């Protein structure tokens, strides 16, 4: 029942986007379009048919498939809303988990479930979290796509109740402004001013609620330039690569703190992931 409604909603949304694209096409046919309008038209045309759905299908299989020394599936994984309850869960992460004694984001919690429920080894699970060019989606990418798909439409509410949650956010803010590397870049170099763009890509001002909501809601995303679903952990990892930092470890404390900082800023936004991006 839920699935049907959701599918219908999605379909209508896609149809609307398509119609909007057609309308803007007709309207501007005689006028000189700006580069920004052109890019928006391109994005609208792509909105209908997101290959992330193919990855979600893989993820669903992996979620329900018994694996590891304990030959268990992930269906009892508790992402903070109760065992196996995925709906809306990712919109409330990162959060403090008593059973682990720390703040965890979606991906570290997922790995935690793979370790505790399936008896698998952390190093083995996180050895290659991101797929390379011409490779199939990794297990983590597939699972993440599936997990986020269950929270589409959920309101973002990353909790700030436990002292560890407050501390994580405070550290995240410091790390956000931390300059380093040969280019002197911090996250803030690109993401702390309104209406900025690099080449033609808009750079959300992540210190403000609205752009932070849009950004937090849109990841993970299917990147058409890479033909892959990229997760929030990847987003942090790849920003730091471009900042010329060393490699950010998967599920590292710095990554969790930054995601907490962003998530708290994004409160009230509506989850859209997995979205489609350049």
């Amino acid at each position: 029942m839920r699935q049907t409604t959701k599918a219908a909603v999605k379909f209508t949304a896609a149809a609307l986007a398509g119609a909007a694209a057609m309308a803007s096409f007709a309207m501007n046919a005689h006028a000189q379009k700006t580069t920004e309008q052109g890019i928006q038209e391109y994005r609208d045309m792509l909105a209908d048919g997101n290959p992330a759905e193919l990855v979600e299908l893989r993820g669903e299989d992996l979620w329900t498939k018994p694996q590891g020394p304990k030959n268990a599936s992930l269906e009892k994984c508790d992402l903070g809303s109760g065992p196996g309850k995925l709906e809306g869960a990712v919109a409330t992460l990162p959060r403090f988990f008593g059973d682990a004694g720390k703040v965890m984001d979606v991906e570290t919690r997922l790995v935690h479930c793979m370790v505790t429920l399936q008896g698998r080894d952390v190093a083995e699970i996180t050895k290659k979290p991101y797929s390379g060019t011409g490779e199939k989606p990794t297990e983590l990418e597939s699972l993440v796509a599936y997990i986020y798909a269950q929270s589409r439409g959920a309101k973002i509410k990353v909790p700030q109740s436990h002292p560890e949650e407050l501390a994580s956010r405070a550290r995240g803010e410091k790390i956000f402004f931390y300059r380093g590397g040969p280019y002197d870049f911090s996250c803030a170099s690109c993401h702390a001013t309104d209406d900025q763009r690099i080449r033609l890509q808009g750079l959300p001002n992540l210190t403000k609620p609205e752009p932070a909501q849009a950004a937090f809601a849109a990841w993970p995303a299917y990147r058409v330039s890479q033909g892959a679903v990229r997760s929030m952990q990847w987003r942090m990892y790849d920003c730091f690569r471009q900042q010329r930092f060393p490699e950010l470890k998967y599920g590292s404390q710095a990554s969790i703190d930054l995601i907490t900082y962003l998530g708290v800023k994004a409160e009230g936004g509506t989850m859209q992931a997995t979205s489609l991006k350049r």
Partner: protein
Amino acid sequence: MGDPMKIRAKANGDEVEVKVLMSHEMETGQRKAADGSLVPAWFIQSVTAKCNDKVVLQANWGPAVSKNPFLSFSFKGGKAGDTVDVTWTDNKGDTRTDKTKVA
């Protein structure tokens, strides 16, 4: 055998709109791997869509079609409950068929 496709078929009057996402690398044969060697071409060459066993679209593709291909088209004479199936075959001879009911 490839991964599942995602097919949507929606009736609007006697017109059925079909949208398909296929899971395929669509290697051009011109991309270099990390070691500098060419990655061999590997792409879907033919696509056939049928509605209740009647061919409604046949396509031939080259390697320039994007990774995880998307296809949309419409045909007349279909209705809710009809079966739409789509088959692709790639240049290595691999093939896959998926189907859906028209909604």
